[in-house]
């Protein structure tokens, strides 16, 4: 039967992010939004900017959570504040120097800057894949996404794209993938 809903702890939130639990995600989002909003808005940001920074912060946390070895060794609030702070500082620095920063949380975690750095690097790589994919054009882009992301079977793909049989589709997929690798890697390792 039903028990009253317990208050979610930091590790509940992390577990929830790992498992794609939407209730935990929603609760997490609500919990720290105002903190980040306050920080960004008090440091020359708009509420739209705060929303962007906050959502990117959750994504950084999500990236970390996907590593099964990730252990949070501070309060979640500290982590979120530190990541958001770092992301916003990077934005501010792009538009000039930063003076008189107003802080709303005592602890700032140094490690956060490393996490933000690797997140931004990852984002760059993803961006590059997406660019390569759009250069690739159709039907290649959709075909690859259907197979690798949507996990469609070759039979379904062959039907969707009107290939005569799944071997044809497989061939097409192979060619598309080789072209994508050529676009993405400067020197891609050809093995066949």
């Amino acid at each position, binding site marked *: 039967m039903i028990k009253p809903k317990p208050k979610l702890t930091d590790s509940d939130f992390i577990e929830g992010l790992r498992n794609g639990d939407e209730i935990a995600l929603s609760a997490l989002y609500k919990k720290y939004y105002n903190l980040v909003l306050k920080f960004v808005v008090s440091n020359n940001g708009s509420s739209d900017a705060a929303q962007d920074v906050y*959502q990117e912060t959750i994504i950084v946390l999500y990236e970390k959570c996907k590593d099964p070895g990730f252990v949070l060794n501070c309060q979640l609030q500290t982590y979120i504040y530190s990541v958001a702070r770092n992301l916003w500082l990077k934005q501010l620095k792009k538009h000039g120097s930063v003076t008189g920063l107003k802080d709303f949380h005592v602890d700032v975690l140094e490690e956060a800057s490393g996490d933000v750095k690797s997140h931004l690097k990852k984002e760059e790589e993803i961006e590059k894949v997406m660019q390569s994919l759009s250069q690739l054009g159709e039907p290649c882009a959709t075909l690859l996404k259907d197979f690798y992301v949507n996990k469609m079977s070759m039979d379904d793909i062959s039907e969707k794209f009107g290939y005569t049989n799944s071997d044809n589709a497989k061939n097409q997929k*192979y060619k598309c993938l080789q072209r994508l690798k050529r676009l993405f890697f400067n020197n891609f390792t050809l093995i066949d």
Partner: protein
Amino acid sequence: MRTVDLFDNYLAGNLEGSDLLAFEQRLENDSTFKKAFQEHRLLLDLLTEHNDKNSLKNKLNQIHSVHFGKEAKIISINNSEKLTKRLGKTFAVAASAAVVAVVVTIALLSTGGYLLKKQKSEITDLKREVDGLKYYQDAIVQKLKTKGTKTNVVDANLEGTGFAINNDGYVLTSWHMVNGADSIFIENSNTERTQTKIIFNDPSLDIAVLKIENANVSENWQIPYTFFPKTIDVGDNVFTLGYPRRDVVYGEGSLSSQSGYYNDTAMYQISIPVNPGNSGGPLLDVYGNVIGVIRGKISTAEGTGFAIKSREIIKSFTTIDGDSATIDFASPKRNGLKNLKRSEQLKRITPYVFNVMVYKSN
């Protein structure tokens, strides 16, 4: 087999036995093979990651628009700081909600509720009201204790609709209405005012389940409708019962769209003119199946309502992993409403639709 297919098979976990062994050995000994594999995996990881992050971003945007409004604007952040200091921690939530004024384009249909949306100049009044409320609320509890009879001493500061979902005293309503409530009562013409508590909520769907604290109240319940997991078609007739005022009000219309605000597929668009107070009411099809729950309307357009699909609610109840809790829906063997004319259907449904009264004091 092409090497790429071999990679795919390995990554999908389809290699077994000697094939797997041979593959792993080659990875170890053949550096070109290894490099090609690493590139292959990197590329595909990036593709999947892009997809994961996109769907996470969509979820976050949805959560944001539900809880903080699509166009939430800052009026004055300094003001909220002062208030926080003066009025203490619990008030800070209300203050920031008020100061970060919410310009929500989708109006949530509970009566009242303007309390938190008042602007700067009215913030000082807020506390007095809150204090007053606390006093009245204590009075109500006192009255209920001593008399145990119906009382209309005080208006709740939020009212809406809820309806029974099983025969054990469980009532479904809107989360936006009961969120942060101090006490929640329900009543209708068959049931005297009785206290409930929240036992489940899903903010992403804006639903909450209340349980009536006094088990005697639901002793003889026999819910006539079923909770219908399938979606119905555009153009089909639908109706609702709700409490936009103290008396139950019937509304009918048809299903306008399979998706709601921002193309949200968890919702229907309906052509029933819904009003503040309708939030949390059941949406039924002609056979008396509950196909959704009234959620809100677009504040700028009349006659456009939104309802959360039953299907999504059932899903939400069954994916609470934390305590592997599930909430049972009443499922009468036979839908007793199917062959009745509408007025007869309503007579049987009305006892299970409640006016929900929410008291918030912070």
